[in-house]
């Protein structure tokens, strides 16, 4: 199992101990939009944690995925304030429009739809984020705009 250059750079930033594991997984997820399976050995070796436990940690936490996410990640906040302001309905509408369920990626691999926990922007509920961009008081007409702007 060779260590790809990106991973080595990430690993070098962190002390060789178990406590570095989650930080390393974050950086790998950010760099690759997922955790590539063939990086697990290197991560296990660096942190001195058995590979099985690295897998256990990676699957426990919602931030990490083994499946690559699309270039565009649309997140529908399902927090309570958003829920009472219609987030559930918005999500259903988005699923219908995209033809995928929350947690899935479109067939062309370009867009991933996710139902996420409260993002902490409750004052502008209901919230939908498209990559880094936060859309306040979301309505489905906004969605058409995003898709139009080259989301899909």
């Amino acid at each position, binding site marked *: 199992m060779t260590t790809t250059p990106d991973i080595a750079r990430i690993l070098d930033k962190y002390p060789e*101990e178990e*406590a570095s594991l989650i930080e390393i997984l974050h950086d790998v997820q950010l760099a690759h939009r997922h955790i590539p399976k063939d990086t697990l050995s290197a991560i296990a070796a660096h942190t001195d944690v058995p590979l099985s436990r690295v897998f256990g940690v990676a699957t*426990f936490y919602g931030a*990490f995925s083994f499946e690559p996410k699309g270039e565009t990640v649309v997140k529908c906040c*399902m927090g*309570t304030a958003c829920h009472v302001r219609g987030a559930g309905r918005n999500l259903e509408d988005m699923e219908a429009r995209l033809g995928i369920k929350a947690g899935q990626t479109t067939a062309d691999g370009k867009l991933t739809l996710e139902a996420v926990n*409260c993002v*902490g922007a409750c*004052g502008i509920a209901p919230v939908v984020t498209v990559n880094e961009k936060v859309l306040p008081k979301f309505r489905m007409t906004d969605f058409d705009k995003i898709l139009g702007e080259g989301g899909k």
Partner: protein
Amino acid sequence: MKIANLKEFEVLRADAEAAQKKIRKKILVCCGTGCLAAGSGKVAAALRAELDRKGLDVDVGLKMNETGCRGLCELGPLVTFEPSGIFYKSVKASDVAEIVEKTIERDEAIPRLLYRDKASKQRVETYEEIPFYKSQTRWALRNVGLLDPKDITEYIGSGGFTALAKALATMTPEEVLGEVETAKLRGRGGGGFDAGRKWRSCANAKEDERYLVCNGDEGDPGAFMDRTIMEGDPYGVIEGMVIAAYAIGAKEGFIYVRQEYPLAVRHLDAALGNMRGLGLLGETILGTEFCFDIRIARGGGAFVCGESSALMRSIEGKVGEPRAKYIHGTAKGLYDKPTVLNNVETFVNIPLILEKGGAWFASTGTERSKGTKAFSLVGKVQNTGLVEVPMGTSLREIIFDIGGGVPKGRTFKAVQTGGPSGGCLPASHLDTRVDFDTLTEAGSMMGSGGMIVMDDRTCMVDVARYFTKFLVNESCGKCVPCREGLQQMLRLLTEICEGAGTLRHLEQIEGLAHVLEKGSLCALGKSAANPVTSTLRYFRDEYLEHIEGKKCSAGVCRALCRFEIDEEKCTGCTLCTSVCPTACIAGEKKTPHEIDQEACIQCGSCFDVCSFNAIRIL
């Protein structure tokens, strides 16, 4: 350039204060997440460009701050001016030229940008006169919305780190402990445990190695106080932590920030760096023998990691499975060493307590809950945003006086506090005073501060189901009652919402509530039944209506409601047609419309927009 001793700090402080005094005008542009999403970044950029173009020097005499959340998110982007106090809402980049010319150069207010009171219909010019702000007591939020979270000099010039200097120069760790105990500060994360007592039991531990942890996980859906404080006043949080570390004798600290808050991580990280640079963190702080440093640990996306023992496992790089609390974290916490873990809001109160004294702090609030509390007032409320009030303020005051009540002419139904561990209180409890114990006695809890207002279009059975579903996904899965019990609970609630509920369902729900409360390993499981039990307590009729009447009066549970247009009231305005997602409403303009029940998906959009009350929920 590290501050070598307290005398040097005093010089730096005096200089910074003098520099502050030289500023004649301040422009505060809210760059909290809500306002940023509404475009405040563009407003700030446009302001800088215009000030530049006009040669108005931003640094001498005029300062513009991109601040943290100002609180009134409903009306962002928000811009405030000091010393005039003029407060603008819904500002756009296109307003900037006029703003610079009239307000900055001539202190003149622009009426269309002013807040308008819904009741009196009058425009309100200054921040202090706006009802939303008038009734607030901003202690934890004292710097948010005013200071630039990236500017350490401004923080020092506004009095920052004087509490730390006071603690290190004139007080022993014992005296600091004493002050916090006098303040009777209870943890602001939800547990409400006496902070001074927690610190003292850690300070008394036999082991030399201790840890200090700040819980910035803020997993309660609907809460964003900690986010706001971390993003908007990172120095305030860190100063509180350094004082705490001094009191308990910790050398290493962690701030655990949930991964959904990258801006908070950035601001905290920058603040830590600046503090190290000045010698306010690290070795020999302010030239004393005290050494302490802090690292940031990012959460992995697990609500359960808001629980202290799970959070500590997460810092250790493990799965976030809680441990039984038979041995407290103050005895065996992080790496099995004595640890103090407190919430962001708890820490940000510390510099204030040290500065003004514990007795001062304890003179506000109720008998058993001292000080103030920040709440995220959201949901079906007019003025959504962050508010901070003294403990003992009534729910009515918060929701109606500050929050402006329920919008769109709908009726108040319930207020949910305490997140998934909390409960819903009905209108009959609006005069409950917010206090850790009164809220618990009423069947809810304070929690971290999420306060979600619900109206008559909210189905309380659906709310119980919503929270149960959330917890099913967030359960760590270690113990049987939570992992297995919550799944059964969700199934039962779903069946009720889908029309398959029976009275036996309620019996089983009550049994599950018992095993969850008594049998679960951690607080997540132990309080998991609260949303169900509190709604059963106050809204049992609604459950019975779903079960026996097979009806959902709120029009939320799709299998149990129907939307029908009242021909006599319908004016044929076609507004409903334009929002119907399945195009199932037929009717010519100015003639009564009709909903095709076959195609209708009971989304309720038509009901929500009709201004003639012409649509009935049956």
